[in-house]
């Protein structure tokens, strides 16, 4: 059987909020190592990869590898029933077609459980090769969300260009253009508030605002976000989930207009 107990159901709720915008349904692969999820959005332009390490759970038991296909809208309905301080226990039998979520309030004065039907999803798994990225940018996640939100008012896509001087986000649309430049700030006391750029060579790539905006739904998970860029390789937007794992989004770059 499978049983995983997480001290804070709010964390799982945040993860859910971060992926349900892009995915309607997804398979959670449970193994000894933890819970993994990999899925493409409907348009097959982006990929979501979630990894929750078994160490991060208060209690984790997985006798046999198990894949649980779930409708994310239904799953978030279940989690809406949980209080912010609740702990959650996820339970499933080995060949079950349902999964049970049990929410316990801090002082055990209230226990609720919800059983949800599982789905059979056939999803292809993609092997993601190790890539040497040209630029790795770390910046405060709130800042990134703000930039993407601001710029998406003007255009449909954002050009991210990274040079020695810093990183520039720019867009253009019918009403005009917008540019945001961030210089490297090394604030050693507060690492998660600084902009750190690790550049091998300069790059400039174009991405869809719509998708970047969906990625920033993960902002509550982490104070810092890592963007990894390389020519002809998908952008990786990575949020660390403290003590639990990470959530990565991959997004294919837009093909430049001139090439067409």
């Amino acid at each position, binding site marked *: 059987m499978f049983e995983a107990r997480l001290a804070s159901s709010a964390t799982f709720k945040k993860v859910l909020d971060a992926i349900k915008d892009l995915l309607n349904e997804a398979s959670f692969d449970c193994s000894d190592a933890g819970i993994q999820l990999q899925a493409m959005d409907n348009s097959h332009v982006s990929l979501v990869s979630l990894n929750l390490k078994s160490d991060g759970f208060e209690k984790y038991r997985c006798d046999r590898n198990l894949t649980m296909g779930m409708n994310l809208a239904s799953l978030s309905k279940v989690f809406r029933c949980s209080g912010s301080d609740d702990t959650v226990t996820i339970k499933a039998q080995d060949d079950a077609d349902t999964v049970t979520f049990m929410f316990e309030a801090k002082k055990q004065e209230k226990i609720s459980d919800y059983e949800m039907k599982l789905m059979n999803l056939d999803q292809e798994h*993609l092997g993601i090769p190790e890539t040497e990225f040209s630029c790795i940018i770390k910046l405060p996640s709130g800042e990134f969300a703000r930039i993407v939100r601001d710029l998406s008012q003007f255009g449909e896509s954002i050009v991210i260009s990274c040079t020695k001087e810093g990183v520039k986000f720019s867009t253009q649309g019918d009403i005009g253009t917008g540019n945001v430049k961030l210089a490297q700030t090394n604030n050693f006391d507060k690492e998660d508030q600084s902009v750190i750029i690790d550049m091998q060579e300069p790059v400039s790539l174009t991405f869809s605002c719509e998708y970047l905006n969906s990625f920033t739904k993960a902002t509550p998970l982490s104070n810092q976000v890592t963007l990894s860029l390389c020519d002809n390789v998908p952008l990786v937007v990575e949020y660390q989930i403290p003590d639990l794992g990470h959530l990565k989004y991959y997004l294919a770059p837009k093909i430049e207009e001139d090439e*067409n």
Partner: protein
Amino acid sequence: MPRVKASPKKCIKSNLQQPANSWVFLLKGEALELSEQYTGSGTPDIVTLRHPNTGESAVFLFSPANNSVQEVLTFNDGKRSWFIDETVKSDGKMKLSTPIDPIFLVLPYLRKYCITHAVPLDQLLRDEEFPETERLLKSSGLNYLGLIADRKGDEELNAYKYNEEKTLNWLKKKTERVSEILKQKNIHINSGAAVSANFVKGSKNDSDNDSYLRYAHGIVSEYLMDDLSQKLLKFLNLPEEVSPQNLKRKSLATPGPEAKKSKIEEDNKGSSSNVLDLSKPEIKPKPLTLSAKDKARVKAASGSKSISSFFKKS
């Protein structure tokens, strides 16, 4: 005005030894006239292009210098033959040609390839099934392409991106002009009701205006893909309901040209054997459950490669 014809002159192919290959062709004079700069062979060319409504092959006529395009239609009422000099031509069909705005012919290509990206015109008008499409580049009407698309990049590059708002405005003007002509000519559009051809209405009211517009929309739609025709109907603020008389117009209009065309195609076997991909609707009918959000995402995804092309399947 496209529908008003100067007195056409009769143009008969002289090849009477093979009567099966001769056509009776009414041609508007200007297609035969040569501009002064032009020094080529001097005959108009009959070619097949993709018809903007059906996506099937259809016959068009290019003037000698390619600067104007005419649409060729076949009139066939069955029991008819022609006397030509001292011979009888048993095939009583008559071909007619009328000038057509080349923008109508370019429109399907623009809608197919230029929605998200600007494409240079010379690349756009390269159709392997219909190599003659390239000739449209020279037609003078194409100078007005700016009415339905936005030019992007260098002027030299001549690249355009489709603009639906402009297109609908342009089509609206076309439709209004057609409806004006219908009114001027006192064409009776109530084919459902029996009205004497000599009956002249005393006054014209507003509801009349709408039905003229709807009738004109039917005519213009003969040159539009169906989905665009629907959009135009909405844009013209015409109510959705289709009254019987308009149905009649539509049902007369749509199969009509095709039936006529198929005859021409038989004569041009070379191109008619092609199987068409344009006959499929260009925009796949999406399931109705698609939310606005999903639609926005589909749009946002265009212009990107699939993510799976970057990663190996495991």
